[in-house]
């Protein structure tokens, strides 16, 4: 039981990761797939943030009177990763817009019927 | 809203978030504000709705009254939640807008929504469709206390001088 509690942050990450992954795989609607993808990515962001935690360290925002900070590097990295994620989402959504125009639907099973997909 | 006002508001916003007064950071702020204003300028041409929002400092005269309204109606709705919500008889009503100048309608509709118990559903040139938890709330609105408060906030356009 203590094992479960000690690593609670990982369980959260794993839960989100699986939820996102499941959504990506199972969703029929492309927008939902993108949502799943975002959840999936976000779980990783959380993984990074939680591992930057230093015990007794506070948020790495410079302030007077604070001496113990958490590791700021993961935060910096994840800022970059978030930008990458947003860019991916943007490209994904714009693709969905074009798919909607070309096929008239964003439901995967519907446009699969329209093409002899390979 | 005038672009100059936007510059002031955005600069204040930047300072609010940053809090630093170093020249480099301030110049970054200036650049950002400039960029945003440029975007707004473009948008204002596209989006006419922006012109319908009028903002004056005299709004602060109205806020205490609104706060009081919110307080009282919150108590009322809370009572409803804890007492017997199943017996509610919500009503739909149309509130006339003829006394409210165009640029204050947003404020009016928002105020209606902000006060618990009433909710503006739809708005057009002549009236607001309001959803109310109780018929009494609609009557209250029709009595026009809020209407008068808002209408009297600042002079209508053209009457300014």
């Amino acid at each position, binding site marked *: 039981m203590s094992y479960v509690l000690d690593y609670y942050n990982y369980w959260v990450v794993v839960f989100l990761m699986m939820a996102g992954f499941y959504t990506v795989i199972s969703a029929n609607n492309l927008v939902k797939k993108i949502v799943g993808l975002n959840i999936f990515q976000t779980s990783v962001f959380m993984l990074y943030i939680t591992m930057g935690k230093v015990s007794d360290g506070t948020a790495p925002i410079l302030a007077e009177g604070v001496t113990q900070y958490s590791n700021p590097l993961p935060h910096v990295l994840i800022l970059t990763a978030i930008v990458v994620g947003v860019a991916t989402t943007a490209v994904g959504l714009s693709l969905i817009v074009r798919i909607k125009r070309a096929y008239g639907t964003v439901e995967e099973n519907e446009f699969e019927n329209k093409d002899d997909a390979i | 809203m005038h672009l100059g006002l936007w510059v002031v508001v955005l600069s204040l*916003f930047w300072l*609010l978030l940053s*809090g630093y007064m170093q020249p480099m950071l301030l110049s970054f702020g200036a650049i950002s504000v400039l960029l945003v204003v440029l975007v707004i300028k473009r948008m204002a041409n596209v989006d006419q709705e922006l012109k319908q929002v009028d903002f004056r400092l005299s709004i602060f005269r109205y806020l205490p009254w609104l*706060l009081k309204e*919110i*307080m009282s109606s*919150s108590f009322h*709705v*809370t009572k*409803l*939640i*804890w007492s017997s*919500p*199943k017996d*509610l*008889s*919500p*009503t*739909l009503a149309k509130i006339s807008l003829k006394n409210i100048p165009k640029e204050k309608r947003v404020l009016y*509709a*928002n*105020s209606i*929504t*902000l*006060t*618990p*118990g*009433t*909710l*503006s*559903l*739809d708005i057009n040139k002549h009236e607001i*469709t309001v*959803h109310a*938890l109780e018929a009494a709330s609609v009557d209250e609105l029709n009595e026009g206390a809020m209407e008068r408060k808002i209408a009297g906030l600042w002079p209508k356009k053209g009457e300014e001088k």
Partner: protein
Amino acid sequence: MLVLDIVSSILLMTGIFFGFSGAVGLFRFPDFFTRVHAASITDSIAVILIIAGLLLQTSFDLNTAKLMFILMFLMITSPTASHALAKSARHGGLLTLGESKQQQKQQKEQMQQQEAGQ
């Protein structure tokens, strides 16, 4: 200081009470439109009270301004969001409680008429 803390605590607690009431209202109210009213309690009075409670915790500085900004921002945006949501629901064809009761009544009458006709 102590007085300020006590007042602040009372404000916070009262805010929480309203917020909690609103959340309960989400479950107890009979239809979507009435539930929007319940939610708007948490968006208005609860927010005002909690922010006010926090304001008492600050000396007059940048944080005060930030809190004021948050309050102002929420005051403007949450009714806008509620309105937009209700409007969407309306356009989506969702009926209010009164309307749906009326509809049910009509259906019942139609059924009775049909039975009578037979």
